[in-house]
């Protein structure tokens, strides 16, 4: 057993050991967003943008659209908060400011994503 603390720990220069997980999560969500965003853009152009309320509700409520919208919202906000985290880590100085801002971004992203997903499900299943 090694009782000596590594110098990186003493001086706080070491990696947090979470970088790889973040990096992979960003790539996986990016790949998921390629088909989802292309589908959504095409759908906006073809149907949603011209649809009235009844048409939009019917479109959201179709099973495949409901599924894709839930996945889209989830992937978008997950990917977005990962990106914001990197920006804050790059440009915000100071441990507490950085931690507080990243935590706020993650919690607000979760709140808005959950509200949007709930909205999709409410339209799909009636409420």
């Amino acid at each position, binding site marked *: 057993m090694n009782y000596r603390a590594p110098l990186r720990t003493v001086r706080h*220069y070491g990696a947090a050991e979470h970088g790889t997980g973040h990096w992979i999560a960003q*790539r996986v969500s*990016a790949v998921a967003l390629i088909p989802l965003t292309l589908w959504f853009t095409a759908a906006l152009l*073809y149907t949603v*943008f011209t649809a009235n*309320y009844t048409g939009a509700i019917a479109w959201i409520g179709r099973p495949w659209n409901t599924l894709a919208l839930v996945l889209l919202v989830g992937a978008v906000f997950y990917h977005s908060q990962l990106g914001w985290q990197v920006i804050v880590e790059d440009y915000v100085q100071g441990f507490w400011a950085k931690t507080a801002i990243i935590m706020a971004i993650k919690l607000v992203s979760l709140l808005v994503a959950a509200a949007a997903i709930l909205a999709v499900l409410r*339209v799909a299943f009636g409420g």
Partner: protein
Amino acid sequence: MNAIDRPRSPDLQVWKWHLTMVLSITHRASGMLLAAGSGALAFWLICAALGPDQYAIAQAFFRSPVGVALLMLWSWSLFFHLCNGVRHLFWDAVKGYELPTAFASAWAVLVVSSALTIISWAFGFLVVGGAS
């Protein structure tokens, strides 16, 4: 806890402006714009769930001049971030790092993302006749 003198990310003003660095910062800027756009997506979905009156508010906003301008900005941001994101995925696979390739792919990203934006809006206005 004292602030630690860690190495910092390069500040923008120390960089000489060239195409690949412009795309790098634009990738980040377009990502930030898209975060606002995803807020608009949530707003639209929540309005749809709330009822016809609230949906009309969202509809009116997205069809106003400001709304259409924002949608244009978000659509270009989306296509740019998408194309440049694919470029990043190739880099992650250790492909395309050579300077001539990196500059060629930068031009390709600019041309393809702009073309997709223009085609989408032309299709929207001319074929579907939506944004009127």
